[in-house]
């Protein structure tokens, strides 16, 4: 295999349904290690369904096809196993969890991961010291971690909180489902910088977006178009400009 083309995620001929409705219809996609992949596509095309299928969300049901992650088929793994192996998805609509303290949640998640990796658990003081730095970087108010997880957070605050989780957990493969929707200009910059800091040449990203704006901060290596449950076009960063000009209608199915 070509050395600079290591595949971290390999989706083959994937058919998946939600509520018995077929959404993904023979989807193929390869994500390369250390690269930034972008998926664009019309509303309802199946982008969120794809990300939910990768992380094992209970809404989705795989009818056929495989998802190989680091050469292992993960379709039968539990969501937590997938997470521990390094897959992370930031939700398009992060759910509110009243009563679960945000800092406690983050620390439990981190310690679960550390335990899995054979590392020692962090106590509250050690953890909070680290967390404080990240909060600052993300321009998040410290109070946010003392509140219940996402409860009453504004749209933008929820998105920042997803990025905070990403930065704490340091996953290997990161799916960002419309992380840029609902962010103000400053937040978009903070969040993008947070993502850029995570780039280390090995970590891979799958960014789902409708807007080219975030791609001015985060340079994509590959751009895919998902339409009607399939990837119908793949190109480089220049595909974005082309799409903005012509729209999805004009795209011919391959």
């Amino acid at each position, binding site marked *: 295999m070509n050395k600079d083309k290591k595949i971290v995620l390999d989706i083959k001929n994937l058919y998946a349904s939600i509520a018995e409705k077929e959404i993904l219809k023979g989807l193929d996609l390869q994500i390369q290690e250390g690269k930034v992949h972008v998926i664009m596509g019309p509303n309802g095309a199946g982008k969120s369904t794809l990300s939910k299928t990768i*992380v*094992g*969300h*209970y809404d989705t049901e795989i009818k056929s096809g495989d998802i190989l992650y680091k050469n292992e088929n993960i379709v039968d793994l*539990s*969501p*937590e196993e*997938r*997470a*521990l192996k390094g897959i*992370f*998805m930031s*939700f398009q609509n*992060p*759910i509110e*969890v*009243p*009563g*679960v*303290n945000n*800092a*406690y*949640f983050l620390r*439990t*998640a981190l310690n*679960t*991961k550390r335990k*899995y990796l054979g590392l020692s658990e962090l106590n*509250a*003081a050690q953890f*909070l*010291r680290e967390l*404080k*730095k990240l909060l*600052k970087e993300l321009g998040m108010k*410290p109070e946010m*971690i*003392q509140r*219940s997880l996402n409860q009453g957070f504004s749209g933008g605050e929820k998105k920042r909180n997803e990025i905070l*989780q990403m930065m704490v*957990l340091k996953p290997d493969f990161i799916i960002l489902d419309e992380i840029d929707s609902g962010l103000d200009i400053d937040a978009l910059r903070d969040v993008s910088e947070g993502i850029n800091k995570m780039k280390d040449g090995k970590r891979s990203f799958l960014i789902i977006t409708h807007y080219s704006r975030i791609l001015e901060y985060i340079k994509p290596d590959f751009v895919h178009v998902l339409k009607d449950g399939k990837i119908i076009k793949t190109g480089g960063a220049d595909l974005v400009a082309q799409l903005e000009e012509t729209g999805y209608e004009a795209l011919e199915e391959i």
Partner: protein
Amino acid sequence: MTRLLNLLSPNEMQIEALEKLKQLGLPTKKTEEYRYFDIKALMSKKWDRYIGDEIDIKDGKDIIIQNGIVISMPKNKGITIEYVTKADMDKNHFDPLYYLGYALSKTNIKIHFSKNCDVIIRHIYSIADKLIPYRTFLYIDDNVKADIVEFTEDANADNSFVCSGSDIFVAKNANVSLIKEQTTRKNGCVCISSDRAHIKPNATFNLHTFNFGDGESLNLIKAELQNEAHINSYHLLFAKENANMGTVSKIIHKGKNSKSIQKSKNILQDSAKGIFDALIKIDNQAPKSTTNQNSQAILLNDGAFMASKPQLEIYIDDVEAGHGSTIGELDAGQLFYLRSRGMEQNEARKMLILAFANEMIDLIEEKDVKETIHKSFDYVYRNKPQIECIATCHNCEEIMLKEKS
């Protein structure tokens, strides 16, 4: 039980209580309030009544009442305690065991709060196989703010039956918070606490009840609200194994602009049974009153059962009322969210259950009391108190966040 009611030389109050008890009858399986509780076993047992001897009350930090006898109390807090044979018993309580308590106890403990204070009352039960009847009166004066916490401690009172409760008089403009924590265990003592609260104009009564464990306990509460009076009534229950516990209440709005909020949260595990049978009644003398009643229950597995019956009865137009009741499982979306961050399913479930309970526990303002209740919950929930930071202990965060970076 009837054998016990042949009292030797009863006093006036006992005679009156016996009379009321006769009218209502000892509770049976058919009695509305005890429908879901295993009352038959309790009533058919041959009980020995325990009546302790009054002793000199020592000076102490808390009010300690052991088997119905006051052991200690704090001096200089504006609190006075005396035993009384005459007091203002409710003439119209719905609960027969309210009167049973009065009929069987010769003296009653009267606790008077004449100035702002906070106090812990510890009820300790330490004798086995006995019926322990006693009643307490809590008098809170005009304009006084009193924070009262009642802890119940079962110190080897195996198979005893505690028939207790308070009459609480919240005077004009007073502000009273009463927190009652009760953990009962299998084969420990059965606790039935029958309360009555009289809330005078412009007064506020905050009631928080916590019933945990694998034993049996029931809170029965009757509360009356006068003009501009408020009650906030919160109930958290965590019952496991064959536990049988709950809250039966009647809140009656008798005056205009009165306000009630009642929330109950219930977690049932194994084959435990939970009860929330609560009526809020707005009389025709109570225009412009508002009420909101809500009950939530989570059944953790198939054998668990919840009888949830929130009810509103409104006899006048000009009021605002809301009410709801849900019984279900943990939220699938929340569970997935936690799992997608690497938490094992069981851990995620635990975290959500704790969160559900925490919402109720966190309503308590006083930090030490809150911690104690968190610990009792944890103790029952995980069979051990969690020494480490718990979900809602924000202390370390506060300290860390203040620290200069």
